[in-house]
Structures are given as C-alpha cells and as structure tokens.
C-alpha cells in the first residue's frame, strides 16, 4: 500500500481521535485538527522543495492538490465517523461538544491550506486528467454502492432502531457517505501517482 494512502488512514484515525477527545473536554478540537492540517501543509511544501533539488521526485501541482484535499477530507471523515460509532458524541451543536463547529473549523483550515499550497504554475496535463478520471470513476462507484447499501439497511431496519435515525442523523450520514466516496477517489488518484514516483526511477531535475 502506498505511503500516501497509509497517511490518509492516519489522518482518519486522527480525526476520529479528535472527536473522542471532545467527549471528555469541552474544547473545540477543530482548532487542533485545523492547525495540524496547516502545519502539515507547510512541512510537506518544504520537504517537496528538498526533493525537487535532490531526486527530482517531488509531486507536481495537480498531485499536490490531491494530497492536500485528501488529507483534509480524511480528517473530516474520521471526525464525523466517530460521531456515529460513539453515541456519547452529540451531533448537535451546543449539547456538550462542538462536533459541528469543529467540522466547520477544519473546513476553514482546508481552505487556508489550499491557499498556502498554491504554486505559481499549476497546469493539469493529459496524465493528470486520465488519473483524475480513474479516481472519479472509482469514487462514483463507491458513492452509489454505499448509498444502495444504506438505503437497503434503512428499509430492513428493525422498528426499535428507527427513532435513532432522525432526518438530522440521516442527513449527516449522507454527508459522511459523500466524504467516503471522495476518499476513495483521492486514494485511487494517489495510488496512480505513486506508480510514477518509485524511488528506483529517481533522477535529478536537470538531467
């Protein structure tokens, strides 16, 4: 499994951990997630500058964007998933924790990270378009599959569980499903990009 996909799993776990922490601490942990995201963007940019000067295996503009978006979405996904796994976490705002505010804070951090990560030149060529198309196809299939499973699950759910699924909860689950499909899309894109940047093929940028 490519390192970038493993990193996404770590980001999901981190997002999940933040939501769990919010059960015990009345503190908007979204700030922690947001600052961690921005910090990672700055570190990653520096590391890629080093790679550009040494091996020439730094990711191109479109790939960098995929990486930044993927990590932000993974963080949000983990954060929202924890809400369903642990009933102690209230999805509503102002009832013991800050889950929704935290999510919005992290979305704001994603926007800041996106501004920070911008390069002067960010052309998307035919290879990027082809990789994006493969990712989009996988993401679309994932979205449809999860929605079908979710709809069937709702249809055959025992009556005693029905009150749990308010319109509010169903709406939130659908948002998480969309995040999951985006994660599949980005993961496929990252796997495709990784195939082109194996260290064995490293070469200096001025060769």
């Amino acid at each position, binding site marked *: 499994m490519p390192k970038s996909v493993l990193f996404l799993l770590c980001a999901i776990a981190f997002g999940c951990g933040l939501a769990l922490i919010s059960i015990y601490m009345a503190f908007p942990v979204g700030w922690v997630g947001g600052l961690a995201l921005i910090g990672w963007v700055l570190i990653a940019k520096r590391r890629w500058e080093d790679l550009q000067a040494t091996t*020439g*295996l730094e*990711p*191109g*503009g*479109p*790939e960098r964007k995929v990486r930044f978006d993927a990590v932000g979405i993974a963080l949000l996904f983990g954060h929202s998933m924890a809400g369903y796994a642990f009933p102690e976490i209230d999805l509503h705002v102002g009832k013991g924790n800050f889950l929704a505010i935290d999510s919005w804070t992290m979305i704001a951090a994603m926007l800041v990270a996106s501004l920070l990560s911008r390069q002067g030149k960010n*052309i998307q*060529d*035919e*290879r*990027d378009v082809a990789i994006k198309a493969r990712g989009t196809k996988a993401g679309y299939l994932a979205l449809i599959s999860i929605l079908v499973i979710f709809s069937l699950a709702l249809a055959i759910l025992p009556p005693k569980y029905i009150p749990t699924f308010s319109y509010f909860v169903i709406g939130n689950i659908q948002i998480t499903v969309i995040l999951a499909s985006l994660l599949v899309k980005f993961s496929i894109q990252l796997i495709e990009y990784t*195939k*082109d*940047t194996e260290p064995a*093929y490293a*070469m200096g*940028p*001025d*060769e």
Partner: protein
Amino acid sequence: MTELLIGNCLRRLRFMRGEITQAKLADMVGVTRQTIVALETGRYAPSLELAMKLAVVFDCSVDELFFWKDAEQAKTDYQFKGKSYE
C-alpha cells in the same frame, strides 16, 4: 505496474538535441515535468497529440520516437490477416 508495450527514445533524443532539460521539454509541449519522467521511464503512453508534439520538438517522426518493444509480437497480434483488395 503493468509494463507498457511501447518504448521511446525520449531521453536519448533530449541529450542529442542540445541537452534539453525535462523541465524545458515539459514547458515546450505543455505538460508537467512529472509526465516527462513517467514517459521516459516507460510508465506512461502519451496521447497521439502529445506524441506528435514531441516529434515536432525533436524534428523526427513519431515512429522514430516511439517503438514497439517487441515488434515481432506486435505484428503477430495486430497485423491485418484478412484479404487485401489492392
């Protein structure tokens, strides 16, 4: 990753034509440097348009730039085997 059946002499031609850097070549044909790397290491097959652009840069034909790694196998697999009316 699946090995591509088509190879290219991009790297050799780059050096033969005044040592054009990957970045400069990428700029000339309107792709990222990473795509040139992927092409040179044989992990990406370009579109016909990009192949023709590259041929123009090196002032050669697409045939001279790209080739079958196993020409005999390609002939066996793809050559027209029907009746010709010429």
